[in-house]
Each structure stands twice: as structure tokens, then as C-alpha cells.
């Protein structure tokens, strides 16, 4: 029994090709069953995410298995020959190294991202439920999960946030800890505001107030976020209640001025106030950070933090690759020799 992997990802294929191969989560087991029905294929796991589709097979012969799979894909998906040129192929030990790299986020669009672990777990479970896994693929995937744990704990590839939304959430958590009691106010109803607010909500923030010059837009976004719309001339009174302010209006001048904020400091009992200014030109007077309890971050400082985290992750790649090689050294996986 020999392991092979065929696949394509965001590096090897454009989205119009990737979507031809995409398999929904519900059909992963069915797709794996179809592969197992092919000659030469003994076990199969199909992984499909927005950035990749991969077929992990245990075959009697790698070459024969690859040829059979290609022919099957071409026929079942109605592909042109050129689409198959985007496929990459790994055989034997390379398969284990590749899967460990994928699950550790080394092959992801956002280096070190952790969402892929859940996606691979889902794919493996679907194949397992469809009874298309066996000794080789079970050992292959169990080892990959084990190696991912080692990579996560022994390197810093998954440390730090690499998106504006996540950096904002991390900072908010550094100020407030658990966000469950934190109230958020959005000034402006744009897309970036929504993304950051959703990141905060996903990490526990409960109440969201949305204010915007156009009240209708504030209502629209508040409904999406299950929050409360507030008229634009009332934002100052809301600041008394909230802990986090995200501002992104198109105003050519500062919307939140230092002297206005000074009037509500006492009413807020000087509780910490975390402010994120995503707008250009800036919405929040930078001098508000003179107030002891105010922590103000503009878009540049947040993007800089995201970039630093990305750079740090890139520096970790070498360590991760070495760790994966070392972990696979003693691993017992059928079909990699």
C-alpha cells in the first residue's frame, strides 16, 4: 500500500479552477466513497476548503493510482485537460510532510491560521463515517493532528494576529480580559467597522451601538449585528456606557474631539476606554490618548501590528519544517516507504 496526494490550492490554481474541484462538506464522504470504488484506490480522504481541494489516497501503486484519479476527475467533473495541470502531486513520505504542513497552516493563504485544523478534521471524519479510511490514512491523519499540536506548542507560527479585526480583538482582550461584559459603539456603518465589530462579537462582546450620519444605515447595520442604532447627535451620551469605540466615518475632520470626551470622563468613572480609529482622515483626535484611561489605536498602528505578526510567523517557517521532519522521523505510517 502506497500513499499519494493530488490537490490544488490558492498557489497552484486561480479561483475559477479551484471552484471546479470544490466539494461541499456534506458531500465529502460521498466523494471519498466514489474514489474508493476506483481500481487501485484502497482508502481515500477528500479535503476541500475555499483555498484547496486535496485527495489523499492509499493505492496499490502510486503511478496507477494517480492516473486513475486524474481520469476520474476529468470524467466526473467534466474538466478540460488544462485544469489538471494545476494539480500538484505528492507520493509516499512527501504526503505525510505535506499534510502536516497544511494542517499546521504553513501552506495557508494566511500563514499559521488555525481554521484549517477544523476543516481537515471535518474532512477526515466524513471519510471515516463513509468507511473509506483504513490503516494508512488513519495513521497519516492521526500523525498530522499530533504534529500540528507539537507545532502549535513548540513554535510561534500561530501566535499573534494577522488581520485588522483580530488585532483589534486581541488588544481589546488585553485591556478588558473577557469581552463578555464589554459594550461596543460603532461610529460609521462601513464594511471595516462591521468586520471589526463582528470579530469582537465572535469573542464574546455583547452590546453593540451603531451610529451614523445616515440613521437608516445605522439601523441596517445594527440589525445585522443584533445591536441598537443611535442617532448621530447622541454618540457622546453612549460613550458613557461603552468600553470599546470603533470609528470609521468619511468625515474630513475629527468626529471625536478631546474636549468633548473630557466631559464624559467623570461620568464613565474613568473606566478604560479602548478606541480604534479606522478612518482616513482620522475620526478621533489623537490627543485623546493623553487621557490616562484611553487607549487609542489608528489604522496604521493596527496594520503595523498585523504586519509584525505576519513577519514573525514567516521567521518561524524554518523551525516548523524542521519540527515536522523530526516528528515524522519516528512516526509509524503505513504507505510512506
Amino acid at each position, binding site marked *: 500500500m502506497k500513499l499519494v496526494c493530488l490537490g490544488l490550492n490558492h498557489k497552484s490554481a486561480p479561483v475559477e479552477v479551484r471552484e471546479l474541484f470544490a466539494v461541499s462538506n456534506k458531500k465529502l464522504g460521498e466523494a471519498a466513497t466514489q474514489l474508493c470504488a476506483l481500481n487501485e484506490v484502497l482508502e481515500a480522504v477528500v479535503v476541500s476548503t475555499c483555498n484547496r481541494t486535496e485527495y489523499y489516497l492509499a493505492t496499490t501503486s502510486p503511478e496507477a493510482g494517480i492516473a486513475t484519479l486524474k481520469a476520474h476527475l476529468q470524467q466526473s467533473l467534466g474538466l478540460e485537460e488544462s485544469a489538471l495541470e494545476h494539480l500538484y502531486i505528492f507520493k509516499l513520505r512527501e504526503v505525510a510532510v505535506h499534510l502536516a504542513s497544511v494542517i499546521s497552516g504553513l501552506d495557508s493563504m494566511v500563514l499559521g491560521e488555525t481554521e484549517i485544523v477544523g476543516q481537515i478534521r471535518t474532512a477526515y471524519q466524513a471519510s471515516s463515517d463513509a468507511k473509506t479510511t483504513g490503516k494508512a490514512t488513519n495513521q497519516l491523519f492521526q500523525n498530522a493532528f499530533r504534529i500540528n499540536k507539537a507545532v502549535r506548542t513548540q513554535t510561534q507560527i500561530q501566535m499573534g494576529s494577522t488581520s485588522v479585526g483580530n488585532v483589534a480583538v486581541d488588544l481589546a482582550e488585553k485591556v478588558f*480580559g473577557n469581552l463578555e461584559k464589554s459594550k461596543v459603539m460603532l461610529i460609521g456603518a462601513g464594511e471595516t467597522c462591521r468586520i471589526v465589530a463582528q470579530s469582537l462579537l465572535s469573542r464574546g462582546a455583547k452590546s453593540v451601538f451603531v451610529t451614523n450620519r445616515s440613521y437608516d444605515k445605522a439601523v441596517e447595520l445594527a440589525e445585522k449585528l443584533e445591536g441598537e442604532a443611535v442617532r448621530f447627535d447622541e454618540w457622546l451620551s453612549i460613550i458613557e456606557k461603552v468600553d470599546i469605540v470603533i470609528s470609521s466615518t468619511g468625515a474630513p475632520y475629527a468626529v471625536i474631539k478631546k474636549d468633548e470626551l473630557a466631559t464624559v470622563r467623570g461620568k464613565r468613572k474613568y473606566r*478604560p476606554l479602548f478606541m480604534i480609529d479606522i478612518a482616513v482622515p482620522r475620526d478621533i483626535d489623537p490627543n485623546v490618548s493623553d487621557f490616562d484611561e484611553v487607549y487609542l*489605536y489608528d489604522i496604521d498602528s493596527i496594520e503595523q501590528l498585523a504586519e509584525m505578526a505576519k513577519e514573525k510567523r514567516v521567521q518561524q517557517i524554518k523551525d516548523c519544517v524542521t519540527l515536522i521532519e523530526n516528528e515524522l522521523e519516528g512516526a509509524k505510517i503505513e504507505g510512506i516507504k
Partner: protein
Amino acid sequence: MDRWLTLLSLVLVVLGTYFGYRKVRSGSSTGASSFQWLLAACISQYLVISIRGKALGACPLHETSELLMFLAWSLMLVYLLMGSVYRVSLMGFFTMPFTALLLLISLLPGVYTPPAVERLAEVDPWLEAHASLYILAYGVLLLSSIASLMFLFINHQLKQKRLNGALFTQMAPLSTLVTSSLRLLIFAVILITIAMVAGYQVDVEQHELKNWIGRISWISYLGLIIVTYTRGLPPIKIALSNLLIFGFSLLAISLV
């Protein structure tokens, strides 16, 4: 024997600090290991206090070295007994160097004195309660000050947008540190209040200046707590006031 055991406690907290530092550098959690090192040092230091207490026939708080040994023990004890709301991330790691400093000073030539040769003829229970509760309260206050120092560090990093470094990443959130520091402060004020009540029952002549420093510190701490919970104060002012009052209250110990 007590000297060797104090030295053992010192070695334990120094080793704990060293291994904690290595863990912080590697990005691992220090919580469990700090707890274990401090637990071992606390047990060792408890033996020291027992030995000196038996020799004296009273609470061993009659010499400067005894005060420092007792304070180091109460700091460790308070840390170990506190729940998770008070015992926040890296607090154990920061507690160990302070404990080490107290133990080191207590062992210095000129500071260290051997255990009493004779037991005290008469022991005033009110005085014993007053002194031991006061030192225990100092342990709580020191822990609260450590939380305030940690707050100042994290506040500075957040204000200056220096958000890298293993220490920053692992340290507890800013609000948690403020909460922890304040709750410890309330606990300390309760202990000091009881200690003061006990002190008023003592039938010996007392150091007036020391008493005034104690009273002023108590009023200041009480004022800080009341102002924080009623009018509100920026967290940095709470932390700085806490440290300032603690520094002032230490004068009382130096006069014991």
C-alpha cells in the same frame, strides 16, 4: 538550622524565578511551576518560623530578620491561598524575586540574628495578634503592589504601542490587574483594621511615630478604595497611589 532553611527557601524562589524566566521567554505558561516553587519555599519558610517561634515562645517578630522572614512567608502564603481572581497570570513569577529579596536581606550579616536562647517570660496575646496580622496584611499589600507594578508595565506597553515580547503577551489583562490589586487592597485594609483594634488593647508603651504612619496609611488606603468605587479614578492613578502609600507604610516597619 533556621538559617539553612531560609537559605533553602531563597534558593527555591531564585530557581523558580530562573525557570519562570525561561518559560516566559519560550512563551509557555508559568502558572503551575511558579505555584510549585512558591509552595515548596513557603513550607520551608514555615519551618523557619516554627523553629524561631518555639525558641521564643511567641510569634517570631521581635528582630528585623524575623520580620523579613515572616513577611516573605506571608507574601508566599497569601499568593498560594488567593483564588484565581487575585492570582493572575505571571503574578507568581513576579512574586518570587520580591520574596527572594526579603529572604536575602534577612540573611545578611548584621541583619540576621540567631533564634532566641530563652523563651519570653510573658506573652501579650493582643500584641501577638496585632503584630502577626499587620505583617500578614503587609504580605497582602505587597502582592497588591506587585499587581500594580504589573499594571504599570502593561499600561505603558499599550500606551506606547509596544505590543511585542513574551512578557506582554502572557501578562494578565489590564482590567484584571486593577481588579485584583483593588480586591487585595480591601482584604489588606480589613486585616489592618483588625490589627489596629488588637493594637489598642496592648498594654505596653508604643512607638508613636510608627502608630501615626500606620494610621495615615490606613486612612489613605481606605480613601483610595472609597474614591475608586464612588467617584472613580483612572487605573494608572489607582496603581500609582497604591505604590506610593505602600512605600510610605513601609516606614512603619522600619520603626518596629
